[in-house]
């Protein structure tokens, strides 16, 4: 980057070579585009065109049966959009998606931060511990959801078995299939959204290694002298964290929040595999899938997916508008 800029600055000093640099630049331009063209073609065909096509599909009444006749010049209608907004459970699934996304994003980052702080210093076996902490993230989603399902099963699950035998629960908890679980906290009766909380816990477990990796890399780049100086001055570890480490982590934390938010918002397989969208965990992506496979309603599925994507864009715009300046400060 620096080198290219300095070459640019040299140019006016040698006007005689202007023609040659120009052609060289053109060549570079052409090579750049040529090298990038395979990427552009793949992204165009598999991402950009499908997105545009979804917009078209969302405004046509298309089902799997009349799919072959559908084209650009079909009949356009707002019926799908209307269907999506008026169908039962639309708003509640939007709220579920939001709660799920925020819960999973925050908990996975907090857990990742704790892990990064704990595994920062050297200790015997650190490499092995660090590698094993990454396992939830690299393991296939189908396999880990099955283990969780079995562990949490009310009939033959380890958690409920231990809970009833060792912790004195009066009956097994159906973690993944119970919508509400009544608990009394200091005499207050509260209904916990059990299945949703379990799904969020699963996301935290599966994705904290992602946050951990980024935060650990950033933590290790913090100059040791800074902390050393604070320690000599008698600062407590929590003070060091608050005033020295946290400001350094600000940018990475902001980046992680956005990344995890986008990824969780668009997530499908985890919820689908764990609960199938039942017991109050129906996020919008699962709804899209159900429109597509249970009703074969491609138009409605597209409309629903489009609403999801627009919702995300809107949320991101709000986030960037109100939080971006704060990021720059830190």
């Amino acid at each position: 980057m620096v080198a290219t800029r300095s070459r640019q600055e040299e140019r006016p000093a040698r006007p005689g070579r202007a023609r040659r640099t120009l052609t060289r630049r053109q060549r570079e331009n052409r090579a750049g585009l040529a090298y990038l063209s395979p990427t552009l073609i793949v992204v165009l065909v598999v991402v950009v065109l499908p997105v545009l096509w979804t917009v078209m599909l969302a405004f046509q009444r298309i089902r799997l049966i009349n799919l072959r006749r559908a084209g650009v010049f079909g009949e356009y209608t707002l019926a799908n959009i209307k269907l999506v907004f008026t169908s039962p459970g639309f708003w509640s699934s939007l709220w579920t998606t939001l709660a799920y996304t925020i819960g999973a994003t925050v908990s996975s980052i907090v857990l990742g931060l704790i892990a990064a702080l704990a595994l920062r210093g050297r200790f015997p076996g650190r490499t092995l511990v660090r590698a094993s902490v990454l396992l939830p993230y690299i393991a296939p989603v189908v396999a880990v959801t099955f283990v969780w399902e079995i562990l949490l099963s009310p009939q033959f699950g380890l958690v409920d078995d231990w809970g009833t035998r060792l912790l004195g629960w009066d009956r097994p908890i159906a973690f993944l299939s119970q919508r509400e679980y009544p608990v009394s906290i200091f005499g207050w009766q509260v209904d916990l959204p059990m299945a949703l909380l379990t799904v969020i816990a699963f996301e935290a477990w599966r994705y904290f290694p992602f946050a951990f990796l980024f935060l650990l890399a950033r933590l290790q780049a913090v100059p040791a002298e800074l902390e050393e100086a604070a320690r000599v001055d008698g600062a407590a570890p929590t003070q060091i964290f608050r005033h020295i480490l946290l400001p350094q982590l600000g940018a990475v934390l902001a980046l992680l929040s956005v990344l995890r938010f986008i990824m969780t918002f668009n997530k499908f397989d985890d919820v689908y595999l764990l609960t199938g969208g039942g017991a109050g965990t129906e996020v919008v992506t699962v709804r899209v899938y159900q429109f597509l496979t249970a009703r074969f309603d491609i138009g409605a599925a597209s409309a629903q997916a489009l609403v999801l994507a627009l919702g995300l864009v809107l949320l991101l715009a709000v986030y960037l508008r109100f939080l971006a300046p704060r990021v720059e400060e830190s």
Partner: protein
Amino acid sequence: MTRHRVVMDRATVETRVLRVLRWVVIAGLVVATLFPFYYMLLLSVRPIEEVLQNPGRIFAGPAEWTLRTYREVLTPAGRGGQGFPRFLLNSALVSIAATLLTLLVSLPGAYAVSRLRFVGRRQVHFLFLSVYLFPTILLAIPLFVLFTRLGLRGSLAGLTIVYIAQTVPVSIYMLRNYLTTIPESLEEAAAVDGYSRLQTLRKVVLPLAAPAVMANALYVFMIAWNEFLFALLFLVEDRADWTVSLGLAQLSGGIEVSKTVLMAGSVVLTLPIVVLFFAAERLLTEGLTAGADKG
């Protein structure tokens, strides 16, 4: 005086508490991350009747182990088993093809983004962002339509193309971060020696970027091997095309399939990834976060 001592003590007390707490956290993390995998392995070798009677046991001696579950999973469908060898082959084919092709596409792309000045270089990021901004389920619908029409829907080739698109942006990002650390003077020297740009890329840049390329290959392989949604949408109709993830998910819906068999399938699905990962853990963790430490 006393007040002074209290302030002094805060640092000492916290340091002591945190020293203990740190080990508690480390132990907790290790248990939380490893236990589900241990339990998966344990269940896969315990007889199902025993599991149903004693779900809380977390240890079983070798005398109780049974490999019946693995036999059922690994026997071909034609001979009454679940036919996982076929799924393993499909997964391997798709993942290896996706890995090689992604690298073939993203290496020149990353080189262009990191070294060459061209029109629209700054705008490229928006294109990449779009890949992750839209939910895969949104892309899945038109791709489902498109691939149905092209006759690619039930084919592993169609799936491979989707995986390439899903991984190329991250791949370019990772490689670009690494390529910028390679001194440009090396390439200039190669140019003086009469190498063309493509030759330079192949003979100078590629060997130097080998660690990043390896990390990248692992990352793409992992994504392709673990992927579920597109496999479900595109391949579900024909059992012969199933990947391991899909085969396992379909297995759970089947009647008469015990949970221990399901766990054996999970082990078969997870093992290749875990082995690969531990073989190259360093490469992957460093490759994934390259550039993150620059803030």
